[in-house]
């Protein structure tokens, strides 16, 4: 708990971070920047878990455990995503999402 800072403030920060991530996800064309946006989203969620754990249920640790898992999943996801991006780059000589449109066929 931070002296003088209510939970709402922290949560507002994570919310804004979340929607900035969404914005990035929706607008970016480069696959890596999309990945960055996703990391932002995941990070904001992790902040949420931790903050709620700390402020509302300090005697428990579930929030921390969950954000640990989120970090682990994010790591796994980035590993795969980077592999896919490199593969994508080798096929299209570019990492623009526009080139991925053909995948719908």
């Amino acid at each position: 708990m931070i002296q003088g800072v209510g939970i709402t403030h922290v949560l507002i920060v994570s919310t804004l971070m979340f929607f900035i991530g969404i914005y990035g996800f929706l607008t970016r064309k480069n696959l890596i920047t999309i990945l960055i946006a996703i990391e932002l989203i995941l990070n904001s969620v992790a902040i949420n878990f931790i903050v709620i754990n700390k402020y509302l249920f300090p005697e428990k640790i579930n929030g921390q455990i969950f954000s640990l898992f989120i970090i682990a999943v994010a790591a796994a996801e980035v590993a795969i995503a980077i592999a896919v991006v490199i593969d994508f780059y080798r096929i299209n000589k570019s990492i623009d999402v526009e080139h991925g449109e053909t995948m719908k066929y």
Partner: protein
Amino acid sequence: MDWSYTIWIPLLPFVGFLLLGFYGRKLPAPVPGWIGTIGVFGALVLSYITAYNYFFVENTDMLFEPIKGFEMLWMNFTDVLQFKMGVLLDPISVMMMVVVSTVSFLVHLYSIGYMKGDPGFGRFFVSLSLFTFAMLGLVVATNLFQIYFFWELVGVSSYLLIGFYYEKPSAILASKKAFIVTRFADFFFLIGILIISYYTQTFDFLTLNGMDETSFTSLSASSFMGMSVLAWALTLAFIGGAGKSAMFPLHIWLPDAMEGPTPVSALIHAATMVVAGVFLVARLFPMYSHVDGGAVLHIVAFVGAFSSLFAAIIALTQLDIKRVLAFSTMSQIGYMMLGLGVSGLEGHEGLGYTASMFHLFTHAFFKSLLFLGAGAIIHAVHSNYMTKMGGLRKYLPITHITFLIAALAISGIWPFAGFFSKDAILDAAYMHNKIYFWVGWFVAGLTAFYMFRLYYRIFWYEDRVYKHTPHEAPATMTYPLMILGALSLLAGFVFFYVWPFAEYIGPTGKPFHMHINWILAGISLGVALIGIVLATIMYKKKNDIPDKVSKAFGLFYKWTYDKFYFDEIYMFVTKKIMFGIISAGWTWFDTNIVDGTMNLIGNTTVKSSNAIKKLQSGRMQDYAYAIVSGAVALVIIFVYIWTH
């Protein structure tokens, strides 16, 4: 005695059908024919054994009680509504079994030669075996449901066989016509069955035939236009039978059905399927004569007599030899119907019934012989028209002799088969109503005339030069002709004197004695001879008398040649009146509302999917946008709901 083997009588051709249906088209040409023939031969042997056992072993007391050789429950809906399949053995079913398997076997054998080289050889035998199965199943039916089931099945196989040359538009039209007309009649039959089973709570023939007049009266208290409900039901059933048997006015399909291969005409449209209507009336005969005191039989007799006369008149002028035979078939079936219609139930009163069955029996042989002979002739000359024939007796000796035998038999000349049966029918008609007798008598003369006109036009008339010298058909075709020739020659004689038909087959199973009324026989024999003599004068050598005669009849000749315009009338009624006027509103509704709705749904789907296709861009960001905006929208909605 254990009769359960009789189930194999219909099943053997069915096995043949299955084998041929699965493998028939892959086999080389004669093999499917022999497979089908062997299947039917099995049925033939079994039915002869059955006939021997039934007539000479089981019932030595000459009281022929019906036996259920086999019966199984097929579909069980309620206590009353049960559909059973089985084998009913009684004099007429055993007789029909013999007739059907004999003719079917001979036709199978004949077809091996006739259909040689046809690309649809295997297919032909598939349908033929199916038909034999269906017909045998029909004649051994134990109940109305079974008879209706097989009734439709013979209709289907008849349709398949008429339309056998499916690349010929006329064959397709003919098969459609036959199917639609008989199906139309079957619809009445079905309603009849439903009414009968509704009032009597049974489908079973033995139960139905076992009831007496009072129980029928008590069952059908309600009446409509002077007849009880059951009488109406029987009339409807008779309409179904009339459709199958090509009785006036449902006869129009039979001449066209000659588009099928000739063996088919011999089997289906001469000997077996077309007598199904006669068989149906005979099958329910005790019921027919009990309900309303036999009122429906008056209709049967009238329709039979009228069809007989009507068809005989048309047959006089036709030039297509198969059509002459088709109308002759119709005329002879009319005789059978007449015989049933004038029959009583007990003792000598039942002469009409016996005579009708007897005529069915002999007619099957000589008419299939005529058709098979016609097939041999067509095979040799490659034409159906008697104008392209003449002088063929030198080229086709076996066909000539057998055809002559059949012509004499159908004309009712002693001692050929037709004489005895036709005489018995005329006798019965005389006992019942003199007018029917004179109609039958006149038809007998006409029959003799048109048969010998046909005979002379084919075999005598004029010596002409053929492009291809006609030659006699192969052995598989001539042997059936000779066998049938022998049967046509002997069947009447043997079954009159040696094993008198009446002692075995009667409406109640009780025998009586049948004898020839020589005065009536003499009169009818006389008219037949007059017919033959007239035909000889007019057609033995080419001369101008026929032209003069046809000119003298003038318009009437034209009418008969065009079959009294019945096809045209039906076309007018269906096309102009029913389709054009009565159903016009419905058609409008159908095309605009029903189809329109469906088209609208279809078009809307196509259009809207074209419109929204762009949403499926394949760009995950677009999808993510949809997901996020949807989530936000949902949150807004829920928040609004919760806070208000």
